[in-house]
């Protein structure tokens, strides 16, 4: 167990009633990993992310984060141990401005978000860091805008900015470009390519061009079961994968 594994999942199982959405899933992510998770709709990809982050409880299996067993922890604890995610559907503080959305996350990361007094220097630093992070992602100019009023594409970028602000060791991206018009999606893809190289990243994505460009390894999930785990080039020519998945989307 001295291999440098950032995230290690063993025998993860989950069913909703009779519907099996995770069947004994084993996954390892090393630091700096770029793993793509693909599979047909309803395969259980989002459920997998929810299980890892603690929003759902597995029926069986273990999850370890940097050697620490986390499967019993509530989501917020897992975040503090370096596990961050984005959501397939925007999950933002829509009445706050963009910068505050990031700043609130930084305040939690720095563990002063509970303070009622003596917080001014930290909060100022927090806002500056938030602004810097937004600028880095190319959305520095909308820091003052209320999230509710933003186009969907920019909200998607904010999802990523918040997750990054938590300084995660492992980042789970659930369809980061979902719902974004393809003309704007390239902006999100540019951000993905520039993500810090030391973070282990699992990305769920339907655009095969993006995933083949970004991921060095691809996991194919079908009905809650890992069908294949291989390099993109192998996945592309795998007949079984093509039959259940690629054949329907890539012509």
């Amino acid at each position, binding site marked *: 167990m001295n291999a440098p594994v950032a995230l290690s999942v063993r025998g993860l199982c989950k069913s909703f009633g009779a519907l099996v959405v995770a069947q004994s899933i084993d996954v390892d992510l090393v630091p700096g990993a770029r793993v793509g998770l693909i599979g047909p709709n309803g395969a259980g990809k989002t459920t997998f992310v929810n299980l890892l*982050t603690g*929003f759902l409880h597995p029926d069986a299996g273990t999850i370890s984060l940097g050697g620490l067993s986390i499967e019993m922890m*509530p*989501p*917020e*604890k897992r*975040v*503090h141990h370096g596990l*961050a*995610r984005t*959501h397939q559907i925007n*999950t*933002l*503080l*829509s*009445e*706050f*401005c963009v*910068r*505050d959305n990031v700043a*609130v*996350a930084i*305040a*939690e*990361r720095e563990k*002063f*978000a*509970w*303070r*009622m*007094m003596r*917080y001014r220097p930290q*909060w*100022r630093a927090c*806002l*500056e860091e938030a*602004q810097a992070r937004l600028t880095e992602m190319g959305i520095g100019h909308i*820091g*003052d805008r209320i999230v509710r009023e933003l186009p969907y594409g920019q909200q998607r970028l904010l999802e990523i900015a*918040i997750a990054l602000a*938590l300084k995660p060791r492992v980042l789970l991206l659930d369809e980061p470009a979902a719902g974004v018009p393809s003309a704007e999606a390239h902006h999100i893809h540019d951000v993905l390519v520039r993500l810090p190289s030391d973070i282990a990243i699992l990305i769920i994505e339907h655009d095969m061009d993006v995933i083949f460009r970004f991921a060095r390894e691809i996991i194919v999930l079908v009905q809650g079961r890992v069908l294949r785990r291989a390099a993109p080039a192998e996945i592309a020519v795998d007949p079984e994968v093509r039959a259940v998945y690629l054949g329907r989307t890539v012509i």
Partner: protein
Amino acid sequence: MAAVSDDKPAAPPTTNLGTGARYGWWLGLIGHAIPWAIVVLFFYMAGGYLSLGTQVLIWILFALSLDLALGYAGIVTLGQAAFFGIGAYAAGLFAIHVSPDPILGHLAAIAVAALFGLITGAMILHTTGVTFLMLTLAIVSMLFEYANQARSLTGGDDGLQGMTVNPIFGVFEFNIFGETAYVYAAVVLFIWFLISWRIVHSPFGRSLDGIRQNTRRMRAIGTPVWWRLLAVYTLSAAMAGSAGALSAHATRFVGLSVLSLLTSGIVTVMLILGGTRRLYGAFVGAAVYYLVQDETARISPYFWELVVGLMLIATVLFLEGGLLDLGRVGQRLFWRLRRRTDGR
């Protein structure tokens, strides 16, 4: 709303920002000055209405306590009367059985209400929505029934009588004209207002606002939601208990109605009328409620209920932010008119 002036990053200030911020600061100061000036002026001009004024101050404090829980943190409760009532009974019983000192009694009442908030909050805050609402209702109803049955302790539906309250600091006596009670209530309200102001503008307050907007988002950034809610729930209970203690000391009487569901309902109506998440919404709501009640109840008590109902409906439908939004709507109209005349 979240963007307070000092939220701007220190990095590149534009030339205009300075004067704009200073202007906003002055406006803010005036905004603070008006309500408190009214509180002070009322003392000199109230005449026979001073006791009514004290009641309004107490209800403002009560509504303010609800604003923290319901307005900021989004805790949808109908149990706020439990804390008000516990504060009132604690202050009353303390005066009868322990000491007639009002300050000590007040602190004791706050402590008891806070403890009750902490314990019940710990038991029910893991639930949300209708479940939570029902649990708060159940708690108030149980307390009400208990106070009703425990005649030897509470006086049942005759109310708690026979309190003696010493002068505050041994100097300011609670007299029949109610001057002491009014000033006392105003000072206590002011202290709680300052505390609330600090809280809602702190990172803690911001995280509460975040929890109200999107609990899942907050959990995803690592917020221990349950603890934050428990903290604000306890604080809100302490404030409501303080209001209850004021009520007991001001009237030297505690009626069973302090624990009734109606009391919870009225304070909610006041807060929503005035506007949530403003702090001053509680001021406007409680004042307007009493003012309109006083005017219309003379005509008929049923008429009064009709008016309150209509006001509430109108507010919820047309003024999302309560009556305080009237100012904003007026401001917008003013600027629009002005722009039009300037354009000509």
